[in-house]
């Protein structure tokens, strides 16, 4: 492959702190140089001053394959990811069948490799069938390539099972990722409990359902010495608990997703099922608490929380509609809205999308370093566009951000030096 020299770029590597105009040379699929030295015979790409950063690492996304290919396939998700600047993706295991067998984990990794644009790092099911009862084979699943353990959209409800999971996963150097929601309080709830749900006559989920599970699992992390990671944290009360647990030195980390710092519960408006998510959108005070926790470092990563749904899943009365939003194509743009608003520096925002999730998952990805794979994202931070459900890349069109105007768009995505988008 001809070497590629990307010139006139703003090189931004959150891991090393590099943020300077320059050029990056790609040779044999790897970053050969960051010094801007001219390279004989290289193809030159003028970035026009755009930001060149590591390809994004999305630490939480569901894909319909296997089992729900009508919603999304690994190939269609890879196309959406490439358009969103994502080159590494940790895939949830609550597929059909669930990823609770080493052969299934290997299958998913191979399917990711076949896209040649996206590295898929599967989570394995924390319990067999993601049913919350018996632990799956953590050792064998780790050997097969699973990055961590989780039951995906389902909370590990039993305290005993969670205790066993945290203890056992520790031996294999993996974290347990929890959907922090006390199931008996969540019930069949469809929206955050409060005035809006009361007005709409929707069954509510108290915001405390999140803090209760977080409090319990922090206690279990203290008991076991295991590493618990809370996914898509959405309330100030839970973030306060996580902040305190970190200060105590426990192995407690968390991520959030763009809807929880960009939208509040009013997005469900008159029964707008595309804004029905799990956890549900919260009130404005909680959104602001998520923004504050991004800024102070309490939140370790921003994940897309991509949950593909088709029209039949969503065009139902609100309480019957499936929860979940498409998030791959909008991950960067919505995150940059916090940068433009002055809540986050560009470097900190990109760290939440690259090196910090990579570190949680134990991956080499997410940095601009000589010798590292040339997984790159080139984006124009000021370029305006509008999210249009129906015109998004990939199969899933269920964006809760439909109609949202964004600033910051991916120009090109490179996987191992090969241009896979733009």
């Amino acid at each position, binding site marked *: 492959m001809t070497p590629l020299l990307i010139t006139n770029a703003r090189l931004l590597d959150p891991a090393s702190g590099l943020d300077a105009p320059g050029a990056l040379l790609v040779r044999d699929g790897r970053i050969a140089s960051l010094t801007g030295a001219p390279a004989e015979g290289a193809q030159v790409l003028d970035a026009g001053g755009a930001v060149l950063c590591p390809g994004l690492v999305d630490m939480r996304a569901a894909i319909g394959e296997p089992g729900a290919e009508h919603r999304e396939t690994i190939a269609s998700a890879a196309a959406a990811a490439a358009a969103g600047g994502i080159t590494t993706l940790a895939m949830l295991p609550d597929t059909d069948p669930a990823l609770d067998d080493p052969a299934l984990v290997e299958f998913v990794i191979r399917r990711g490799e076949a896209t040649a644009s996206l590295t898929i790092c599967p989570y394995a099911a924390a319990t067999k069938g993601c049913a919350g009862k018996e632990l799956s084979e953590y050792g064998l699943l780790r050997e097969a390539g699973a990055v961590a353990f989780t039951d995906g959209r389902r909370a590990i409800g039993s305290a005993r099972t969670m205790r066993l999971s945290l203890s056992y996963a520790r031996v294999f150097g993996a974290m347990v990722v929890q959907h922090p929601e006390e199931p008996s309080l969540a019930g069949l709830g469809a929206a955050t409990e409060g*005035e809006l749900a009361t*007005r709409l*006559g929707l069954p509510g989920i108290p915001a405390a359902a999140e803090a209760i599970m977080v409090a319990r699992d922090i206690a279990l992390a203290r008991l076991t010495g295991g590493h618990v990671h809370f996914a898509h944290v959405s309330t100030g009360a839970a973030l306060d608990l996580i902040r305190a647990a970190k200060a105590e030195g426990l192995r407690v980390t968390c991520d959030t997703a763009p809807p929880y710092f960009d939208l509040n519960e009013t997005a469900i408006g008159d029964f707008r099922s595309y804004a029905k998510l799990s956890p549900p959108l919260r009130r404005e005070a909680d959104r602001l608490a998520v923004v504050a926790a991004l800024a102070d470092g309490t939140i370790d990563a921003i994940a897309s929380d991509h949950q593909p749904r088709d029209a039949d899943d969503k065009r139902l009365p*609100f309480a019957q509609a499936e929860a979940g939003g498409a998030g791959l194509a909008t991950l960067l743009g919505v995150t940059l809205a916090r940068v433009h608003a002055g809540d986050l520096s560009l470097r900190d925002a990109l760290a939440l999308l690259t090196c910090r999730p990579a570190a949680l998952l134990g991956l080499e990805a997410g940095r601009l370093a000589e010798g590292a794979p040339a997984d790159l994202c080139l984006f124009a931070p000021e370029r305006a566009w509008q999210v249009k459900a129906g015109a998004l890349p990939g199969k899933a069109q269920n964006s809760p951000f439909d109609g949202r105007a964004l600033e910051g768009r991916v120009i090109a995505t490179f996987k191992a030096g090969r241009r896979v988008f733009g």
Partner: protein
Amino acid sequence: MSGHSFPILPTGHLLAIEGLEPPHITALLDLAESYALLNRQGKTQRDLLKGRTLINLFFEDSTRTRTSFELAGKRLGADIVNMSVSTSSVNKGETLLDTAATLNAMNTDLLVIRHAQSGAPALLAQKVDAAVINAGDGMHEHPTQALLDALTIRRHKGRLEGLVVAICGDITHSRVARSNIHLLSAMGARLRVIGPPTLIPAECARLGVEVHHDMRAGLDGADVVMMLRLQRERMNAGLVPSPREFFRFFGLDAAKLRAAKPDAIVMHPGPMNRGIEIDSAVADDPQRSVIGEQVEMGVAVRMAVLDVLARDLRRNA
């Protein structure tokens, strides 16, 4: 009949009370009042909806409301079809939009829908050309019930403004309570809700009501006492320990009613659970109970709503 310069239902549907302004509500009540008079005189207006098709689409069992809409439509001359879709056969609401497509193909003019899911009529209204009337959706709203309740109150008290209205029982699961709260507070009444905390929805006070957990305190000085039906499944869900405990503390009997004003009226949207939320002696007391009149006003209110929406259809035709 009435010469309003503004469209009484500007959306072309009646999906909720929330969002209606007092002049719209007053105009609907005035029109309904005139229909109540015509009904008592035995006069009909069979040309008003002539050639119009009204479909009663009921995904939940209902005798009272469906019959009331049917009578209202017939008195205005509409062609009426009743469709009952048993909830058990509804496969996760898929038939809702399938049905919508079918109804659209049949050029339905007026569509009355009752559904167990909050927001189902709003979803349907996006998909059909007909004027949609919400006849009760989940725990959300039951707009014609609130209108008929307001008309009944107005006929007895001569006004709505300044009245103290107590709504008692299972507020959480009640669409009747929500529609009444929106309507009566928009019209200047003072609303109280009374029930055990397990049956009062979160942040209920933000709807502009006083929340009480004690019947005597809540009924003190009330002009209107509105009882709600307690569904048996609420007991199965553990929200109420037993019928006898509920009746003892939250059921309306003559002793509790004494806390209200001497001329307070007693209402119930029906069907009643005698001995659970209301004592028969109160329900059947002709001096206090206006439950029968509520049913009568139901037909008049639904005639007014159909009339108003059909005018919009004529305007858009």
